[in-house]
């Protein structure tokens, strides 16, 4: 066990936890934050994406020991923001959601991308999403949604 201090969804937390536990399991099992999904457990699919110091990260690859001193944001907290509302509207209007299992991770990846590139080209959107797999949509509607969000949310990122 180890004492770990970090910020989760805007709150400073101190936990006494096995440092080898995955951040994903801590979120889902201990805190019931199930918006972060497990699709593969090996950093390939991105369903477990969280913001780690505002960068998209696969929470299945992050042991709790590595969280110390960092700022973690999950979909549950990000969904309270204005930027989320812009992304949500764009995902809805472009038909970017089918089964929905990859969607919270896609939203997190989109936020991370738009923070770095508020006006991304299509090529940049594709690269920004390439760590997040979707089996339903063929991606084009997700790409269109991010294009729309970048436009409608101009100035927010």
């Amino acid at each position, binding site marked *: 066990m180890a004492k770990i201090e970090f910020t989760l969804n805007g709150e400073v937390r101190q936990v006494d936890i096995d440092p080898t536990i995955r951040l994903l399991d801590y979120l889902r099992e201990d805190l019931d934050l199930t918006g972060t999904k497990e699709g593969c457990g090996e950093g390939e699919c991105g369903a477990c994406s969280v913001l780690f110091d505002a960068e998209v990260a696969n929470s299945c690859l992050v042991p709790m020991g590595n969280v110390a001193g960092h700022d973690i944001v999950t979909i549950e907290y990000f969904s309270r923001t204005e930027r989320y509302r812009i992304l949500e509207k764009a995902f809805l209007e472009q038909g970017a959601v*089918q089964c*929905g299992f990859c969607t919270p991770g896609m939203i997190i990846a989109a936020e991370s991308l738009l923070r770095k590139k508020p006006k991304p080209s299509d090529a940049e959107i594709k690269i920004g999403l390439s760590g997040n797999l979707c089996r339903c949509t063929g*991606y084009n*509607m997700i790409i269109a949604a991010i294009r729309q969000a970048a436009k409608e949310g101009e100035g927010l990122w």
Partner: protein
Amino acid sequence: MSETISQSLMRLDAPDKIAGRAKYVADLKMKDCLFALTVRSPIAKGKILQVSLPAMPEGYQVVDHRDIPGENIVKIIYDDQVIFPVDEVKYIGQPILLVVGPDKRIVERLAKAIKIEFREEQPVFAWENSVIRYQFTKGEGDAPFASAANTISYTYTTGYQEQAYMEPQGFIGHYDRGKIVLVGSIQCPYYVKNALIRALACDPDKVRVIQAAVGGAFGGKEEYPSLIACELAVAINKIKKPIKLIFEREEDMLVTTKRHPAQIKLAAAIGADGAIRALRAHVGIDAGADIGLSGVVLSRAMIAATGAYTIDNLAVSGDVYLTNTVPTGAFRGFGAPQMLFAIEMFIEHIAKDLGRDPLAYRLDYLAKQHDKTSTSGVFRDPILMPEMVEKAMAMSGYAAKSERYPREAGYRGIGMSFFLHGCGFTGSGEAKTIKAKVKLEKDSEDLVHILIAAVDMGQGVHTAMRKLVASIMEIPIETVIYDYPDTDQVPDSGPTVASRTMMIVGGLVARAARALKESFIPGQHQVAEEQYVQPDYIKWDEDTMQGDAYPAYSWGVTVVEVAVDPHTYQVNLEHAWSVYDCGKAIDELMVLGQADGGLAQGIAYGCLEVMEHDQGKIRQKNLTDYIIPTASDVPAMTTMLIDNPYPLGPYGAKGVGELTLVGGAPAVAKAIEMAINKRITKIPATPEAIMELIKHG
């Protein structure tokens, strides 16, 4: 609203999914829940001699065949799949027993410590043990071969394809006062329920099956979940506590059903004028170790033998082979993608061998309304393929590109596929086996509850069915309720498969909605029920495979353009254009979403997704080894929908989900064929396969 039914609504289930609030099975929790892990066979064939358990801490136990109260059979079609083996295993990954207990890590440790002694036997991997053989003929069968001027033959080969839904399979279940309740990631609540009744030898009211949000299925959650459900229900029946059984990705990839590998042998009898006098086809598919749905997959493949074409004389046969490999099963398209790849390439190859223009040659054989189908039924409804081909060619610039690219030899290619998909169950499935029932219930607050077993697995049932009822009854969509199906609430409207949900189930829901509208009394509890009745002009003979295999057909044209890297042979997908006739879109945006996703899977089937076994062991065990398209891999897609209302579908709707996949592989394979000027007879056409073709022909 009928004029505007296709106008898109925003999906009603999407806000919860985007925000991460939708509950998939792994998200569900129960107090004092135990965890189950499956111990599996490491060998492809052999006898189980002895199972040695480690010391089991209190609260931990194993569940095996001795705990099954009913029959040790997973009810699918044939009774050849056991829940837990008694003394023999027949494929690597076959479940042998469950380890159950409160701490997941201890369960894992115990499962690893179990020693099973086997006597290995010689496994069979060759396709020699045929367990199902079908055949049918049309016209003069293959008699014209005797007088043919020329015979052209090719053999086409397709590999496994993994559904790779983003959410792995799983269930959570509990014991509720004598009743076993399972919640799972499933396509077919009643398949699961009926399997449980048999495994538990219980009354129907002693099992209840509820669908959780499903994170993609594509056929992979059609029949396979029945096996997991039986295992888990046996455990719950023994232990009487809540138990959760969720697959890891690796487990899911290695042991769940996949698309059948196929070998399709085609021969054409060619007349002196270069016309096809007859076609002979043999379809072989690998079922793996259990037959499962393979017979039905085979029949759909065989019936698709002539694709979107009419050929007057046919002799079609097929075999399902058992091997000591992981069982194959349902996957979007269900046998048709294999056959459509083969026939689309074959007609092209015939034309090329004869020195004819492939496009003109193919257009000559396109099926027309009133033509006889492969099984001597009739294409009753209008077929708009010539118009659709014209539109696809105009959108894609096909004529100019297909003339220019071969001449320039610049490793660019464009390919066009023609295809159809039979909507609903094959043959008499709907009328004799499924007999779908639906129910609409209006409560005293005038809320209309849609009670059907059709699940939303991403394709949009939730929104589409509510829209359908609201539109017909002319009531606000907010007053129409659809919940995750629960077998205690909904009648058996059949499985969510075979592109049948909108056309068949939606058709019944539409009828019930009209009845409810006509008898509407405000504030009164009212019920409208409907049951499927096959139109009497649809005739099908199961034994001879003659007649109308499907009540209706959806049609499509897909064009794919590629650039093949001359050094690495990497296939870059430049653009894909499609035109579909799915009758009438109940929601245009949702149909376009099906189109994009289906085509991405179909193209990837043709050029990207490799899965193989080595001595019965699947080699691709995760999403690192098994490559599915990323956002950077898919081409831009342009899709056009053509209205061609089907009289018996709601607002004219036909099937759409599978259609969009079947044209992908042949279109991309033809494009690659043009780019490299070699005949492609095997998919996926990966860079390695392309290199082999270029270097050795």
